[in-house]
């Protein structure tokens, strides 16, 4: 001990000799113990800062979210959604076409939060009843938003959307009051219809894994898009595939150079499911769904 006791570095601590056995106070710690305690406090602080930093790094991508994501149907507005989703994936489990995916670190908007990548696999309402909403335990997905919660401008649907697959059922509508996005012809120049072109073959090639419910094939069971080749005079795949009545039609337009062209036009009933984006055969898709957008009138 004598060697350790010679003051070398921690001179400040040994400046005044510790008062021995002052009444009511604990006996002073040995220098060794004091150093140990100090090192431990430092470690505690460092580890604490580390965990804290890691936690914040989990928040940063949310704070700086660059890209909006398509959420499952019935999702609350983004901020409320992120706050209330418990990241259980029960919505993932019930989806018959596995449209919903949980986010990873690199997706940059909260680990474990569900989203839909429409180009890979859109929600085509194969479940008939928007089951993901039913499965959600926290109300992050909901049929009916509580009155005090904000509604994005243009998110409200004028009427409950009619699901084409259920059109002749006694209850043909979908229990949805707000859209999750809006489809828009973002690349009109590449749209085959705009160019007056036909389409023949598999919409997304032979390797595409996405599924879609084709009523002409089976009202209940979705099949692979690759197993359902098309042959049309003028491309209208997005119009054919749209599961919502009156959401999209092919219209005649006069282009700037005065020629008549056909073009897909999105209407108010569009819920933003993304089926049109998934099916569009051009690469990249000519029509896309804009996540979280509201209805701003036809353009």
């Amino acid at each position: 001990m004598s060697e350790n006791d010679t003051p070398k570095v921690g001179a400040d601590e040994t400046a005044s000799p510790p008062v021995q056995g002052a009444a009511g106070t604990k006996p002073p710690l040995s220098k060794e113990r004091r150093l140990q305690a100090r090192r431990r406090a430092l470690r505690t602080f460092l580890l604490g800062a580390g965990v804290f930093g890691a936690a914040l790094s989990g928040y940063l991508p949310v704070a700086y979210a660059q890209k909006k994501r398509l959420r499952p149907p019935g999702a609350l507005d983004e901020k409320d959604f992120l706050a209330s989703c418990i990241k259980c994936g029960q919505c993932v489990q019930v989806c018959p076409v596995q449209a919903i995916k949980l986010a990873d670190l690199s997706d940059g908007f909260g680990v474990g939060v569900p989203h839909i990548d429409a180009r890979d696999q859109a929600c085509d309402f194969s479940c008939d009843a928007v089951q993901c909403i039913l499965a959600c335990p926290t109300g992050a997905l909901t049929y009916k938003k509580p009155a005090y919660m904000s509604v994005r401008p243009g998110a409200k649907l004028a009427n409950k959307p009619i699901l084409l697959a259920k059109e002749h059922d006694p209850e043909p509508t979908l229990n949805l009051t707000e859209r999750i996005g809006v489809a828009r012809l973002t690349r009109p120049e590449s749209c085959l219809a705009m160019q007056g072109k036909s389409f023949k073959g598999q919409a997304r090639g032979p390797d595409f894994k996405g599924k879609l419910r084709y009523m002409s094939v089976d009202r209940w069971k979705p099949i692979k898009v690759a197993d359902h080749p098309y042959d049309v005079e003028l491309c209208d795949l997005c119009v054919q595939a749209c599961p919502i009545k009156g959401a999209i039609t092919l219209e005649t337009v006069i282009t700037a150079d005065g020629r008549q062209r056909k073009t897909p036009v999105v209407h108010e009933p569009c819920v933003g499911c993304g089926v049109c984006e998934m099916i569009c055969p051009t690469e990249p898709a000519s029509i896309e769904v804009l996540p979280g957008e509201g209805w701003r009138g036809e353009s």
Partner: protein
Amino acid sequence: MSAALKRRFVEQIKVMFGAEPQKPALIEERALKVHQLKRMTNKAELAAAKEAHRAREKNHKWRNWRWATLIFVNLLFVVSYHFDIQLLEGALTASRFAGFHLIDLNSALQVMLAHKHIITNLLIGTGTVLVLWILLGGRTFCSWVCPYHFLAEWAEKLHLFLVQKKIVTDTPIDRRWRTVSWVIFALLALVTGYTVYEAISPTGIVSRALIYSSGILAMLWVLALLVFEVFFMRRAWCRYACPIGLTYGVVGIISPLRVKYTLQGCFHEGDCRKVCLVPHVLDTVIKGRAVDTEVPIGPDCTRCGLCVDTCPTGSLKFDIKGLAKLM
């Protein structure tokens, strides 16, 4: 409950929040007598008896049951999803068992703090889970269900092996940090309106990775935690950081199921303290510390049963409060 046990009960709660276990200020008369008697016993005799007990084969009964349960529960999630048998849907943060909502208390708390609004399903799910873990014993979740615990247990074995080989040293930190971290995560949820903790919760990450094979990158964070535990700090996450553990620990305060210590046959050799994830709850086995002849182990205990398996004299046993009286 004797006066000394009542005091100890309160002290154990403080210990759970990070206080260091103290020498008891009050010890029951009958326990004092036992302590006295032990001092008078022939030292050589005691040593011989210790040796004889320790030589007994290693007992892994509870550990095996526990691992089996943990694997079964987590597999049930995986199987339910992949074969669509709809028995246990969801993940550990929230699930549905045969239609019943089950919601992890800590996750629910985070969501409520972030969202500042509670819906009925959330309340029902939390209620079911609360009742379940009150009955099963709060932190039982940690050792019998949490998939990170399972990985960390293996990392711990590796760590102890390396320590024994003098390749690494264990560097413990201040246990109060866990309480601080709980408060920080609660505040973060409240202020940011986002469940910040869930982004780094290894429990949720591992559970989702198992079930949905999603969040593979997030598993790197879990791996980093495990590596840290192997090389620097024994069971760092569970001991010093995890808010889930503390939340369930609080539930454990009122749980009737716990481990009970019997002073009589104990040799105070401390094998139990060596295997325990939360050795501060076993301070009572230190010579002269037991405040009564029978002392229940504190709420921070994960009821893993490692000490029960290890104790050569059977001085630690699972126990249900009040059951002895009923029978």
